[in-house]
């Protein structure tokens, strides 16, 4: 009898061990060969008010290492294809695309999400909801706004540099973000700022520079979820200085007979608001930057501390100018607080914030600003004095 019971138990145990295997496989498991791997997505508003969704799909089979592809003269299959579809909602357009593509679209692999200028001007709040709600698109995808080009055009470029254009675009965003002229914006950053009255969302800017190349520089400024305007690369850098998001960059400073270039190594920025009698009275921006001398060919001798101090002052002035340009544009042209002064007020002066909250755009754009930049030059490089200026 006991043997029988033991057998029954063993059978049960085996059965229970099989269950976890079932759990591991998804109900709707899809092998790699049955999905379309999406590399990039684009969204644009069409003339008649619909949403045009473009996807760039990578074909894993057609991607070959550059060395292998060169020799054979035969026609290669293209590594990517681009498809687009219209719909009244993002989701509908995306699903409707299955009428033109053969396999289901797999969105988790998307590298970039390009938002068209027209759509951005009309407001991105509604379309973002899908990306927020849907579990498939990664929250960490790069978002960029297209200027003077539609996302469709941008995704259809054929880059020489990377077989998959979306990967190429993402690469340029990362490069320029390291130079401080574009802000690397993740989808989650937009979600965070979208509903926040104390800071307006911003996103990187992308333009088409030739048939094969794009240029990612500048910043798209939003106001209440709608595109308000653009900042140029220098203003973008000013904004990043103030916002403590600058990773590095080259700042030119006028010297004796030309310009010298300084490389920013470290920078720390903070924004705050001065409150007087329960009312915001002054916007304050403080930046501490550390830089190295990168190029000093047109300058004079560099071996005295006085020169260095003078250069530090000039560098601070240059950075201050960039910040001022950015702030002025945001105040006068866009009336959009992208710096997060409102968040500061909300955090440290909640009572004051309650009063100004609903009129913050106007109040922000009229406040005077106090920008102070403290630049330090740490190192001068391998030589001290430039050519012809030595002893």
């Amino acid at each position: 009898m006991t043997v029988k019971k033991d057998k029954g138990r063993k059978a049960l145990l085996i059965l229970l061990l099989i269950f976890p295997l079932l759990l591991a496989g998804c109900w709707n498991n899809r092998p790699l060969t049955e999905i379309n791997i999406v590399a990039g997505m684009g969204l644009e508003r069409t003339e008649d008010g619909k949403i045009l969704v473009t996807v760039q799909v990578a074909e894993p089979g057609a991607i070959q290492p550059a060395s292998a592809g060169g020799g054979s003269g035969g026609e290669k299959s293209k590594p990517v294809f681009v498809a687009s579809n219209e719909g009244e909602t993002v989701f509908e357009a995306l699903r409707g695309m299955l009428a033109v593509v053969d396999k289901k679209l797999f969105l988790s692999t998307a590298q970039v999400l390009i938002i068209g200028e027209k759509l951005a001007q009309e407001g991105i709040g509604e379309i973002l909801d899908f990306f927020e709600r849907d579990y498939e698109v990664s929250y960490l995808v790069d978002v960029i706004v297209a200027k003077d080009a539609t996302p469709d055009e941008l995704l259809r470029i054929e880059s020489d540099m990377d077989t998959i254009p979306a990967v190429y675009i993402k690469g340029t965003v990362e490069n320029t973000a390291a130079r401080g002229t574009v802000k690397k914006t993740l989808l989650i950053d937009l979600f965070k700022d979208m509903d926040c009255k104390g800071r307006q969302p911003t996103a990187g800017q992308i333009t088409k520079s030739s048939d094969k190349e794009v240029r990612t520089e500048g910043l798209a400024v939003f106001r209440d979820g709608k595109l308000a305007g653009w900042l140029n690369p220098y203003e973008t850098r000013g904004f990043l200085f103030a916002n403590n998001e600058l990773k590095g960059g080259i700042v030119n400073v006028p010297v004796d007979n030309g310009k010298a270039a300084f490389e920013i190594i470290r920078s720390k920025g903070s924004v705050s608001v001065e409150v007087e009698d329960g009312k915001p009275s002054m916007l304050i921006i403080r930046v501490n930057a550390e830089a190295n001398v990168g190029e000093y060919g047109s300058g004079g001798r560099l071996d005295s501390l006085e020169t260095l101090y003078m250069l530090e002052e000039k560098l601070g002035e240059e950075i201050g100018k960039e910040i001022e340009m950015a702030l002025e544009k945001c105040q006068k042209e866009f009336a959009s607080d992208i710096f997060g002064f409102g968040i500061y007020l909300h955090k440290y002066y909640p009572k004051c914030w309650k009063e100004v909250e609903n009129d913050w755009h106007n109040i922000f754009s009229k406040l005077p600003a106090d920008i102070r930049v403290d630049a330090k030059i740490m190192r001068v490089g391998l030589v001290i004095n430039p050519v012809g200026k030595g002893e």
Partner: protein
Amino acid sequence: MGKTRISGLQLFMLLSGFLFGSTVILAPALGAKNDAWLAIIIGGTGGALLMLIYAAISLLNPSKTLVEILKEKMGKVLGSIIAVLYIWYFIHLASLVFRDFGEFICTVTFPETPMTVLISIFALGVVYGVNGGVEVMGRMGELLVPIIPTFILIVSVSLITVNDFTAFLPVLENGMGPVLKAALSYITFPFGETVAFLMLFPNLNRKEKLKKIVFVSAALSALISIVIFFRDISVLGSDLMSRVTFVPHSTTLLFPEANVDPLVDINLMIGGEAKIGVCIYAATKAISQVAGIENYTNLTRAVGAFCVVLSVWDFENVLDLFSWTERIYSYYAITFQVIIPLILLVLSLIKRSKPAEGSDADNEGVIASK
């Protein structure tokens, strides 16, 4: 009765797992927004006190389960009626946790798998564990529950780079009202739910440790909830945090370069297992004691199946579940979690339980004279 014994550590782990239960996916006290940490501190203190009351009840009535205490203090008839209500409460609680679990997995991991299938497979494991008895559950807790804080710590530490540490400011923007309300809901969920442990406390091998165990696990649970809150608000910001469905899950989505939401899922499975296991155990044990059935294990399958059915029936959709938990649950639960235990405590203090056999008759006399 009372042959199965669990050690202090096992009870502690089981209790902690129970407290983590669903709170690892549904961040507690979110009603207070930025001040949730205050609500957690207040609620945690209240919760610890409440759990100490349960411990006191159990200590005043040594080696008696909730049903036996109820019968002794309130008389056979009234005690049995209240015991039946408690059975309902435990079953309902188990079904609620099942539902939380199912909704989470369906939303996040397996959107096209029917929820019934997920819950049923989960229930199989839980019922199997409960069938093994208190000792098996205790050992399982000992083995698995330490994983929960470990994973929480791993995720929290790894996310330090994407933090805005001042995100929880300003303090008390909307006054104390929402904080107290959230604290109340935090007391009832999860602390008050440990009333189910009144069916388990008699199995502890060393009674003198009970109060310490209860207090430490409550404090630990509140502490970890605070850590989770600060992590989540630093990563998501208060605006986004008030909009997302499952806060800790959304936080893990931001984990750089890796997909770590299985770490949250595993926590849910372990915590949910402990919680549902204890609830089903409490319910079946209570049924067997009310109905006078010798071996409770015969009932676990039936009760487990009933919980699964109930969990699917309870609510039409996920929002129904949330709004019910948010609005009604606190008040519904207070009867079982606070009022009846308090009455029991008072009765226990007035009439110290006497081991003599005559006490039953005495009690009946008291009830009858009322």
